[in-house]
C-alpha cells in the first residue's frame, strides 16, 4: 500500500470518527455543549497521537464545522452568535497541531533510536567479521562482503593504498571510479553524493592513510560511516601486523634452521677428522722409520689444514647465511688486546709488540670473543707478512663516537690494487698464493664480524713501508651516558 493512499484512508477515517460523534450526540444522547466539545477534543488528540498532522488537521476542521453547525446556537447555521465559542474552535486546531507535533517527534525519536540500534548491531557484526579474517587480502575482501551483508546495501568497494588494490563487490560499484577512491584516500573529507546514494570515506588509522571505502545505495549516517571505516582500518591493520609478525617469525625460524644445519655440518665434518687426527698423531708418537715419519707428518699437517678449512668455511657461512648477532656488552679495549696477544703468544714470541692504549679510553660495546678473534687474525696476518723479528704496534683511540683499533706491521706492504680486494672471500694476495697455509677467508670473516657490530674495517698501506689494519667499533652506550 503506498503512502498517499494510506493518508487518504486515514483522513477519511478521521472525518468519519468526527461524524460518528456528531451523530451520536445529535441524534441519540442529549448532552451539553461542553461534553460534545471535550469528546471531539479527545478524538482529535487520539488521531494526532496515532497518525499525524494532516489527519488531525482535517479532523479538527471537520469537528470545528460540525460543532458550529449542529451544536452552537444558532443551530443549523455556520454563524457564531457567541464570540466565546471561537475559543472552542481554536482549541480544536491548537490541540490538533500540538498533539500531532509531539507525537510525530516522539515517533521520529523512536525511529531514530531503532535505526541507531540497528547500526550498532550491524557494526558489531562487522567488527566480528573483520576480526575473524586472516590475511590483508582476505580481510579486505571480507570487509567489503560484510559491509554489504550487514548494512544491506547493493555494493561496496575498498581501495587499499599499501597494496594499491581495489576490492569491488561487483561490477555496479564501477559507478565509483578508481580515481575518486584514490582522491578521497588522500583527502581529509568524505565524499557524499545523496542524489546518487554514493558515499566515499577515507580510511585512516592514527593519521596513517590506509585507503578509502565506497558505498553504493548508502543510507548510513555519517557517524555510522565513520565507525565502519574505523572498523575496517583496524581489521586491515590487524591482518597486516599479523602477516608481518608471521613473516618475521618465519625468517627467525629459517635462521635458526640454518644455524642448526651449519652446526650439524660442523659436527659431521669434524668427526671423521677427529678419528684421522687421533690415529695419525698417535702413530707419530710410536717408533717409526724416516719414510713413515714423513708420510705421517704429511697426513697430520693435511688433517690440520682440512680442519682449518672446515672451521673457516663454516664460520663464513654462519656469518653470511644467518643474521649473525654478536652478544654485545661493554668491554675494556686493553682487556681484549691483552687476551688476543696472549692467545697469539707463540707466534709473537720473537716480536716486539708495542701496545698504545690511552688510559681514558671508553669501553667498547662488543662481543669479546669475536673481537678478540678479529685481533688474532690481524696479528696472525701481521706476523705472516712481515719479516721475522720486525716489531708490531697495536694502537687504540677514539674517533668521533667510535673506538678505532689498529695493528701495524713493518712488512712489504700491500699494493694499492690489492688493498680493496683483500677483504673479499677466498682472495689471496699475490705474495701469499704459493703458501699452503691459509684459506683466504680470514679477513672476510673479520670484516663480517666488524660489520655485524656496526663498525668497519680497512687497511692503509704503502709498499715497502708496511701495512696498518684498522677497525672502528661502537663505544659502549653506558660510557656515552656517563
Amino acid at each position, binding site marked *: 500500500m503506498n503512502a498517499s493512499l494510506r493518508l487518504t484512508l486515514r483522513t477519511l477515517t478521521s472525518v468519519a470518527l468526527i461524524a460518528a460523534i456528531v451523530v451520536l450526540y445529535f441524534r441519540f444522547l442529549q448532552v451539553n455543549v461542553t461534553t460534545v466539545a471535550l469528546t471531539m477534543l479527545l478524538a482529535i488528540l487520539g488521531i494526532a497521537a496515532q497518525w499525524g498532522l494532516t489527519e488531525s488537521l482535517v479532523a479538527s476542521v471537520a469537528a470545528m464545522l460540525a460543532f458550529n453547525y449542529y451544536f452552537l446556537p444558532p443551530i443549523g447555521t455556520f454563524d457564531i452568535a457567541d464570540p466565546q465559542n471561537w475559543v472552542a474552535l481554536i482549541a480544536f486546531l491548537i490541540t490538533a497541531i500540538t498533539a500531532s507535533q509531539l507525537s510525530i517527534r516522539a515517533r521520529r525519536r523512536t525511529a531514530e533510536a531503532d535505526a541507531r540500534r540497528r547500526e550498532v548491531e550491524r557494526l558489531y557484526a562487522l567488527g566480528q567479521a573483520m576480526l575473524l579474517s586472516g590475511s590483508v587480502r582476505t580481510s579486505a575482501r571480507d570487509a567489503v562482503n560484510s559491509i554489504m551483508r550487514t548494512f544491506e546495501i547493493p555494493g561496496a568497494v575498498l581501495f587499499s593504498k599499501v597494496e594499491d588494490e581495489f576490492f569491488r563487490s561487483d561490477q555496479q560499484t564501477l559507478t565509483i571510479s578508481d580515481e575518486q577512491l584514490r582522491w578521497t584516500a588522500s583527502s581529509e573529507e568524505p565524499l557524499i553524493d545523496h542524489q546518487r546514494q554514493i558515499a566515499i570515506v577515507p580510511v585512516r588509522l592514527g593519521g596513517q592513510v590506509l585507503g578509502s571505502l565506497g558505498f553504493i545505495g548508502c543510507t548510513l549516517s555519517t557517524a555510522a560511516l565513520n565507525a565502519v571505516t574505523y572498523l575496517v582500518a583496524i581489521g586491515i591493520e590487524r591482518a597486516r601486523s599479523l602477516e608481518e609478525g608471521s613473516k618475521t617469525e618465519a625468517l627467525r625460524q629459517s635462521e635458526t634452521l640454518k644455524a642448526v644445519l651449519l652446526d650439524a655440518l*660442523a659436527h659431521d665434518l669434524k668427526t671423521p*677428522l677427529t*678419528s684421522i*687426527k*687421533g690415529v695419525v698423531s698417535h702413530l707419530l708418537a710410536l717408533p717409526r722409520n724416516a719414510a713413515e715419519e714423513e708420510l705421517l707428518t704429511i697426513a697430520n699437517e693435511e688433517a690440520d689444514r682440512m680442519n682449518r678449512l672446515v672451521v673457516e668455511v663454516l664460520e663464513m657461512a654462519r656469518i653470511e647465511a644467518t643474521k649473525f648477532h654478536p652478544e654485545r656488552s661493554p668491554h675494556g679495549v686493553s682487556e681484549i688486546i691483552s687476551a688476543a696477544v696472549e692467545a697469539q703468544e707463540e707466534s709473537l714470541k720473537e716480536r716486539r709488540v708495542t701496545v698504545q692504549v690511552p688510559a681514558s679510553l671508553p669501553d667498547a660495546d662488543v662481543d669479546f670473543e669475536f673481537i678478540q678473534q678479529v685481533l688474532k687474525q690481524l696479528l696472525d696476518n701481521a706476523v705472516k707478512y712481515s719479516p721475522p723479528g720486525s716489531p708490531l704496534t697495536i694502537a687504540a683511540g677514539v674517533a668521533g663516537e667510535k673506538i678505532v683499533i689498529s695493528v701495524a706491521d713493518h712488512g712489504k706492504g700491500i699494493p694499492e690494487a690489492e688493498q680493496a680486494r683483500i677483504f673479499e672471500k677466498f682472495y689471496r694476495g699475490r705474495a701469499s698464493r704459493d703458501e699452503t697455509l691459509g684459506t683466504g677467508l680470514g679477513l672476510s670473516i673479520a670484516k663480517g664480524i666488524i660489520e655485524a657490530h656496526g663498525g668497519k674495517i680497512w687497511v692503509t698501506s704503502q709498499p715497502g713501508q708496511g701495512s696498518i689494519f684498522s677497525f672502528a667499533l661502537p663505544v659502549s652506550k653506558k660510557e656515552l651516558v656517563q
Partner: protein
Amino acid sequence: MSGAKILVVDDEPQIRRMMRATLTSSGHQVDEARTGEEALEKFRQFLPDLVLLDLNMPGMGGVEACKSIRAGSDVPIIILTVRNTEKEKVEALDAGADDYVSKPFGMQELLARIRAALRRAPSSAESGPQRFVSKDLEIDFAGRRVRVHDKNVRLTPKEFELLRQLVAHGGKPVPHRELLQAVWGPDYGDETDYLRVFINHLRKKIELNPAQPKYILTEPWVGYRFAIAEGLEPA
C-alpha cells in the same frame, strides 16, 4: 705412569674405536658409553679414574651427564667436543668439567691433559697460608672451608686451589701462566679463558659485588691479585 681406568663417552662409533685403540696402546684401561644415560650406568659399574665426555650426544647431553657425575664424584672430567665457542666452554666448566679439548685434537696433547688431570692431588695444605680472616670473609685452608658473611660457601676443588694460590702470594699479582700451571698442571699456560671463568665463579661466591671486586682483582696484562690489605681493614 701406570695405566688408568678411562671411560670414553661418545655417540660416534669410529671415535670410540680410535680412542680405545690409542688409549689402550698408551697403557690405559678403557670402557665406552654411547650416551649420557649409559655413561652414568657405566660410571657406577666401571668406577673410572677419569671421564672423557663428548658434549653433543642424543638424549642426555654431555653437560647434563657432567653435572650428574660431578654431583656424586670428584673424578676428573675432560670434555671433548667439536664446538669451540666461549659459551660452550663456560657451560662445560660451569657443569663441573676440569678441562676442555676441542676436536680434532692431537693424541699427545690429549694424553698430556689426561696425565695432568690424573695428577690432581689433594694439594699440599701444609705449605702456604693456613687461614685468612677479614670482616666479611673467612678462609680455612687446612679445613677447606670458606665463610662469607658467616655463611658457608661451597667451592669446587679447582676454585679452592685457585683461591689458595692467590692468597699464598700475599697481595702480589700472580701471572696467568703461573696460576694455570699451579692449578691445572705444567702443560697449561694459554688457557686464560679458564681463569676468566673460574675467577668469575670465585668472585660470585666470595665478593659482595662481583662487578666491583674487593678481594680478587684483575691486573691488566699480568694476571690476578688477592687484595690482602683491603681484606684486613679494621672492623
